[in-house]
């Protein structure tokens, strides 16, 4: 399922480490492995980009994130330990909340050791990031390394608290999504303690051991994490069957599932969803009345299964649009449900190549979406995975939750024509 242009496990691991607030991720490897992930991290956390006039220190090489040991041939032959130790010391002086050390593919191949004596910040390590695995696999291995290094508190569970699992700073609008889901849960009396990988602090991660429930947001990324919490902290986990909380139906199901497990009242949250539904219906009914839209228009979608499933359900079941191409970047717990849903709605034969399938709307990562537009295969595009198609987000722009659902509907309907 992996294609060459999709982020892989190394990027997943680096983004998971970068997703801890105040952390430093030190890469033992060549700059070739550093520049793009560092610029992705800068972009997703809204920091400035490459600027050798401002960030010209020895290991940072013009960027503000992911210092590296700029390994070269000599290091491959003689070992790069000495420079890694200097970088490690440099990191110590910057007082990070967490230090994450990771080998590049070449460094791991020559067996570089990342362990150092002493050191103040807690340290997570990945000496042998597995090569050619999915984003999710790399991301989750790094999350587990972080949790192993931080050892969340082993306290009795605090009622009405949850951790949100599987979120990442590599997700478009991650901050706004988190805020959206947080406030939806909050009106139901549920507090989010931590969202590992999505910008939460070391203190929040430590606190995560007290959650009454873990909730999967992107389930392909957190099966092992959920199991880790269950074994080490006895925290049960809820995997909503509809995938990520996106689209009114899947979102409602997500919220009701959590509330019923925690004994919370979903009522206030459902009121918010209902209000948003009413507003959406008003807009859609105008389109329907004047242009007979969106019923019968088409879309193609590509992304991770936990996103694609709720999108397909929403666009098909709620808007009456038809999926012509459906591609998932990897397999996950939602894959089977997606296949059976497509079969049930008579779209089991949908293409899996969004780059070769004309449709009214394409929904994909920014690069794929731009390619589809450039090929003239669609008139309208919605980006759901990085890189973004826009540079600036002044307005809150969540991908998930009520706001995320409104974004998806707005953007899909905006360009529809008959």
């Amino acid at each position: 399922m992996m294609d060459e242009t999709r982020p892989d496990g190394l990027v997943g691991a680096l983004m998971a480490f970068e997703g801890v607030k105040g952390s430093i991720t030190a890469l033992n490897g060549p700059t070739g492995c550093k520049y793009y992930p560092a610029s992705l991290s800068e972009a997703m956390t809204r920091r400035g980009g490459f600027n050798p006039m401002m960030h010209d220190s020895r290991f940072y090489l013009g960027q503000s994130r992911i210092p590296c040991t700029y390994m070269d041939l000599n290091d491959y032959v003689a070992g790069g330990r000495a420079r890694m130790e200097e970088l490690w010391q440099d990191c110590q002086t910057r007082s990070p909340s967490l230090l994450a050390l990771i080998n590049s593919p070449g460094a791991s191949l020559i067996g570089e050791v990342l362990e150092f004596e002493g050191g103040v910040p807690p340290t997570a390590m990945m000496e042998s990031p597995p090569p050619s695995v999915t984003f999710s696999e790399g991301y989750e291995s790094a999350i587990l390394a972080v949790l192993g290094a931080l050892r969340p508190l082993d306290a009795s569970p605090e009622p009405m608290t949850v951790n949100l699992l599987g979120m990442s700073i590599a997700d478009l609008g991650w901050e706004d999504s988190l805020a959206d889901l947080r406030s939806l849960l909050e009106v139901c009396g549920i507090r989010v303690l931590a969202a590992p990988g999505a910008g939460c602090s070391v203190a929040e991660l430590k606190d995560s051991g007290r959650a009454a429930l873990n909730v999967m947001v992107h389930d392909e990324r957190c099966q092992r994490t959920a199991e880790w919490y269950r074994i080490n902290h006895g925290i049960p986990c809820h995997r909503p069957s509809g995938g990520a909380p996106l689209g009114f139906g899947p979102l409602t199901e997500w919220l009701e599932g959590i509330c019923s497990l925690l004994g919370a009242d979903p009522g206030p949250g459902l009121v918010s969803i209902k209000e948003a539904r009413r507003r959406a219906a008003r807009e859609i009914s105008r389109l329907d009345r004047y242009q007979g839209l969106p019923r019968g228009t088409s879309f193609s979608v590509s992304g991770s299964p936990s996103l694609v499933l709720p999108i397909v359900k929403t666009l098909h079941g709620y808007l009456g649009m038809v999926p012509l191409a459906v591609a998932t970047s990897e397999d996950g717990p939602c894959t089977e449900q997606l296949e059976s849903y497509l079969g049930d709605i008579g779209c089991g034969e949908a293409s899996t190549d969004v780059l070769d399938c004309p449709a009214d709307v394409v929904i994909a990562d920014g690069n794929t979406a731009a390619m589809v537009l450039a090929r003239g295969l669609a008139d309208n595009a919605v980006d759901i995975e990085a890189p973004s198609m826009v540079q600036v987000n002044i307005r809150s722009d969540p991908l998930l939750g009520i706001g995320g659902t409104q974004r998806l509907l707005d953007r899909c309907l905006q360009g529809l024509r008959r």
Partner: protein
Amino acid sequence: MRVAIYGKGGIGKSTVSANLTAALSVRGLKVLQIGCDPKHDSTRLLLNGRDPPTVMEYIRSTSKGERDLSDVIVQGYGGSLCVEAGGPEPGVGCAGRGILSTFDLLEELGVDSLDADVTLYDVLGDVVCGGFAVPLRNDYAQKVMVVTSGEFMSIYAANNILRGVRNYDPRRMGGIIFNSRGDDEERERVRAFAEAVGLPVVAEIPRSTLFLEAERTGATVVELFPDDPLSSRFHDLANTVLDGEVHEARPLGDEELERIVLGKASAPRAEAGGMRVENGSLRPRTPPVYTSRNVDRHEVLHGCAFTGAVVTCMSVEGLHTVMHSPDSCAHLSCQMAQNAARRAFLKEGVSIPSFLEPRVHCSSMDDPAMVFGGTPLLEAALRRALAECSHVAMVTSCPSGIIGDDVISLAQRMEAEHEGSKVITMVEDGNVAGDHMQGVIDACVALADSLITEHPPRNDLINVVGIKPIATNNERNMRYLESVLSMMGMGLNCRFIGGTDIDSIEGFKKASLSILANTDRFAQMLASFLEDEHGARFLRSPLSAGMAGTEAWIRELALHGGTQDADKVIEGLRHEYQEALGPLRNDMEGRSVCIISMHKDIDWLIDLIDDLGMELRRAYVVDRSDHLMDYHVGNRHESRLMFLQDYVMEDVVRSCVQESPDILLSTYPVDAGLDIVQERIPMVPDIGHLAPLELARHWALALRAPLREGWRVDHDG
């Protein structure tokens, strides 16, 4: 207790290890023996001569979710538990990586839950690269024993092992196990070595036919001849392993070793010191002739040659690119190209087909490929590419270089099998060949050498050389060039290389002349190469931003091949320039400016400042290794520029701020406070007579904006 037994291959360490495990097992201890030798015969004598499944084969054949510890552990003599790491055939893959993967898997499957009393690692000690050193890591072996005979190479390996131990916690040496070969002088050599490194000889195992007899039946001496004195030696050794003291690893220098052990200086020279004695799989390289600055000056490498070569190949239409790499390298390269394409499309409405429809294939090197070699995966990727296209470029990554995959023979075989195909091989080995720019140069060289064919040259065509494949203004610049060329009665032949196709590279020689896209080192290297190897002729003046630079190349072109009167063309352009300059001059005249540039070639910028009647207060050109500084541009304005090699950026900025200019122009934003308007000098400036005026238009507008916009009040960082 965790013990590592190291020794040179063939020295008998596996026999010693198996007998030691047997001796420990018969006293009721639970012993786990892990064989760390690709030969995977460490535990055979504990298993009646049977070969247990190897962990590496298991990793290769069993998917993640189905793996179980019990599948790789076999029970042997005395209840001992036996594991064999396995590994590749000699000459392929990376056996060290196999050891790493084995340890990772055992840990993942919960080997600790076995609660072994003694874990014994039997490790090949000829090669003490990172993989074979895993058992030496601090959380593995608590005690390290070295098996050696009296042969020099065996003692040499033993000394190397001590070097390895010293790199970790050095106080872990349990002693030397002397496995005698029967050579009279060897006892003396081992004794001298042991004394020199301060270690005890904890056991002497004599040569004996009992070993052979036991081996024939697939058993240990301890099992088969329990009452023989030979067995007692292993029981004594077991005592030492369990209770003996530990000592510090103090390896000898090579000369000292030769002197002490041989008493003369005739031994083989040592390789690189410490743990990294072998990474011989990295291909020996002849230094490249056409180099990037980083490679030429042995500077920090910015980016890797792999991505440079891949991005260049991706920019050629009709060419498929095969990346022999893990997915991460492929992703990083493709992102670079696609991001540029997305920006060009969304911002400028320009579609770059080769990037927007990437024709790339990745061998997706995985863990087993790292151990057993990646050529089968590469072959599959090449076949996929060749099924779609007759021209394929193949680029190698760091891992491919480190494990030493023989990609060249494979490429030749693929070419032979696919009639009429071309596999253009670029052995970059990640950043072993150099930085990103070196990869771009290498790819241009390889593509030119493979594709350019003879054609009768035409004077009305010109090639442009030194285009940066991922610059977003390529299309705009080429449109400008074509418009001027058409005024001259000429046409553009080959864009070398960016937004070009195979036919146009093949037809490079159709044009009798070439022009450089700019003056940087990259373009100049390509010019030298094309002159040296393909007889190309270049105009002295490159394409340029600004009126003066544009006029220079047009005049030169007219002398060489243009059919139209250059004066007339230039007059038209100059008229346009003056027309556009007038209103801007009204806005900018008398304004002061400072410059901090990372480009050396800023004559066009100084021209603009002069033409606008602005006052240049300071102009710094600062050196930086990832910028293309060491080219020889004959700056017309050299006397007005200050070239800085060693500098502190804060000082440079301060010096400009002290001049209180109206505008500070810099390649990147600098920390100059809010009282000065800052504007950017583009990384890859647009070419053409009017291009700089676009910048000036922006300067004029920026000067009308408030110095402190409202949003700044709310910005916390």
